[in-house]
């Protein structure tokens, strides 16, 4: 609604406006994330109640248990209460940071998750960082020479890897490397001394699971980067940049890629949460002591408190990552700040 005579003195209200609207934007996004979190907690609780299998039967499989003892155990675990009462107790516990107690290990679920979360973060963080770097680099190159040999072969390879089941690719890599890399665990049985040596030992163990995950997930970063760069390639401002006399690679680096990165960035953050939840198979194949392996072990019970805890943590991480992506997008794209 600006007409040219009023343009000059528009600066002050503009700045005030951007201040208040930032607060409103952040508050709106955080509020939305909290609502999602509430849904996740409810969903997690009721979803796992539908898994077939009686936890009590699993717990007492080894030793004969009389009905009296069973009733006692049921009462101790709170399973004799109506479902809605169990849910309220569960939510009440969550609010105090209590995730409940594992049926199988008789330990606080919070402690178990805290132990397992770091290995998963290490695995997923490393794999994602590498996959993003590799995917973006390949995507930019493929798009810039669209339809060329590089584009066709790399797109084909990426798609083929993406469509492979993780456990199968992991087993293939294990066979192919013929025992060069350790096949299970995160540390050697006889751990070496000194921080550096221990770190190297972990890295050694990390190689195969990380490579498996990397190969499966890099394709999506590549393909999204490729298509969003292709969309920018016809843009008029690139012609302006060329007309200014910029070298081709500068046109790409300074003008095309920053614009094409915007949609890709959202995906990276959104995908990080998804990759965390997708590590179950890789961790199971390589016995990597993370959340995925914990889930895999708990499903046999079913160890409901552990499953619920892991579910809340994984789903929560997706929500938090999405929130970070939204907030970061606003920092990076000046147009989002305006609207």
């Amino acid at each position: 609604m600006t007409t040219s005579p009023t343009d000059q003195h528009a600066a002050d209200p503009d700045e005030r406006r951007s201040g208040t609207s930032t607060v409103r934007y952040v508050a709106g996004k955080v509020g939305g994330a909290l609502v999602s979190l509430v849904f996740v907690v409810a969903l997690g609780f009721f979803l796992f109640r539908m898994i077939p299998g009686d936890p009590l039967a699993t717990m007492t499989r080894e030793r004969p248990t009389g009905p009296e003892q069973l009733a006692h155990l049921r009462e101790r675990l709170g399973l004799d209460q109506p479902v809605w009462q169990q849910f309220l107790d569960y939510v009440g516990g969550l609010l105090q940071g209590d995730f409940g107690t594992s049926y199988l290990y008789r330990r606080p679920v919070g402690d178990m998750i805290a132990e397992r979360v770091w290995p998963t973060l290490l695995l997923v963080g490393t794999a994602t960082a590498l996959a993003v770097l590799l995917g973006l680099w390949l995507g930019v190159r493929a798009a810039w020479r669209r339809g060329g040999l590089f584009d066709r072969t790399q797109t084909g390879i990426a798609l083929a890897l993406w469509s492979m089941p993780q456990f199968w690719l992991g087993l293939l890599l294990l066979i192919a490397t013929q025992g060069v890399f350790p096949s299970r665990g995160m540390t050697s049985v006889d751990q070496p001394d000194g921080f550096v040596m221990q770190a190297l030992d972990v890295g050694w163990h990390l190689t195969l699971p990380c490579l498996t995950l990397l190969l499966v997930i890099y394709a999506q970063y590549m393909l999204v980067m490729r298509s969003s760069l292709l969309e920018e390639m016809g843009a008029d401002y690139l012609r302006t940049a060329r007309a200014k006399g910029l070298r081709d690679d500068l046109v790409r680096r300074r003008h095309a890629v920053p614009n094409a990165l915007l949609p890709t960035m959202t995906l990276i953050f959104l995908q990080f949460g998804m990759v965390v939840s997708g590590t179950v198979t890789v961790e199971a194949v390589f016995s990597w002591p993370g959340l995925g392996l914990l889930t895999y072990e708990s499903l046999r019970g079913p160890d409901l408190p552990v499953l619920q805890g892991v579910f809340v943590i994984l789903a929560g991480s997706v929500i938090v990552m999405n929130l970070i992506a939204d907030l970061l997008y606003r920092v990076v794209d000046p147009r989002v700040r305006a609207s």
Partner: protein
Amino acid sequence: MTSLLELQDLGVTYRTGEGDLEAVRGVDLTLQPGETLGIAGESGSGKSTVVASVLRLLPKSATVTGRVLLDGEDVGAMRWGRLRAARWSEASVVFQGAMHALNPVQRIGRQIAEPLRLHTGASETEIDARVRELLEQVDLPAAKARAYPHELSGGQKQRVMIAMALACDPRLVIADEPTTALDVIVQAQVLDLLGRLVAERGIGLVFITHDLSVLAATCSRIAVMYQGRIVETGDAKDVITAPRHEHTQALAAAFPEVGDPASRYAPATSEPLPQEGERDPQQPVLLSARELRVHFRDRTGTTVAAVDGVDLDVRRDEIVALVGQSGSGKTTLARTLLGLQRPTSGEVHYDGRPVPTSSSGLRDYRRHVQLVLQDPSSALNPRHTVYESVAEGPRIHRLGGDEHDLVVAALEAAELRPAAQYLTRLPHELSGGQRQRVVIAGALALNPSVLVADEPVASLDASVRGEILGLLLRLRRQLGLAGLVITHDLGLAWNIADRVAVMYRGELVEVGPVDQVLLEPNHEYTKALLAALPSPGPDDARYTG
């Protein structure tokens, strides 16, 4: 003396999926320093291809024949390094559509500074000073260097493009449609700026546009392009006063001069309209607004009055032109009249009764009052055939009768004849003018009594403009249709409207018969609008045919 720019027998051919396309053929042009050369032509005439060939910016699919000499040096024979050095420092371009030609995520100061960093060895402080100086030269405050493109208005972005083009003091500037999509007052400012820069710095300017009247105001020589060739070239005044080629004549007629009796009620059309007969001025009022106000609240909570107390009548058998700058509230007013926007206060009446607010009542109302949008390419669903597009309205309103007959009749009324030939076509198989006719047919299919048209010809080529305006005028005469045409183009009002309403900052500042308002304006704003129209200068002996 060597010419600044010389095109010798330039030809450009694009390789496409359907064979070769000769975009430019045998073009010869020269430009001396300090001279302004205008190139006029419609979309597809090859004018933008000529621009791109000067700096060798053509896509890979293009083959160039002939020579382009920049200051005597053959651009086609330059090595890459030499070409990159010549780009922007010797010749720069003010690209069409400034909103897309600027990088959306970079501050404009950085974009203006970029060629300076590239081509000069200036220090950062020198570059900062130069950017400030350039912004001041185009009448923008230096603080705007920190703005992003989306924070600027269309006119401001265009100025940024000009500042950027001047950054390295080039001797040649090519301006590709620098004022299209700007409204008249901003256009006048930009033209004035370009003219001043040419005069002060002795640069050569190539000015490309489809609007001959703009060239008349700025150029010494004009070349007219049509289908890739130059069909006419000569002194600006000669080309405009006595166009020889029929295409030039069509272009000249498409932008009538306000006040020229020959173009009153006579848009440039292939079927001349009969003389305007006697008309009954006391036709019943069909659509009226009383004390209409539409207020919006922006994010800071400040109330903005987009429409601020408007009274307007549209009678049967009458075309009213609603003119004003962008941002004056024209579109909001039209949306409110159509019931697409709820008014804050005031009333809209149709046929003497208030317009209903219920959704079923509004649906009935919209049958009688139909909308024609600016850009037919986006108004039509690209996957719907012409038949589907036109039949959609009657289906929604469950009109009785044979659907096929209705569609054919509507297409015939919109002068798409024979209608049968168009029924199965998709929008991309039609020309811009034909698409706009399909949109109009879609409106006519409901047998409305009022057409509201928002810039109906703004996105069409000059030669099609007259045909669509002629159609609107014939529809009024044959069907007694009332029309409310929203436009920033005073020539359009002169061509077809009976009355004109001038809108400024949400209010109608002047309403009256076209001859009275446009020839003897009362309000200062109307005078400013008329004064901003490009004119060829003091000796005004044009259009004497």
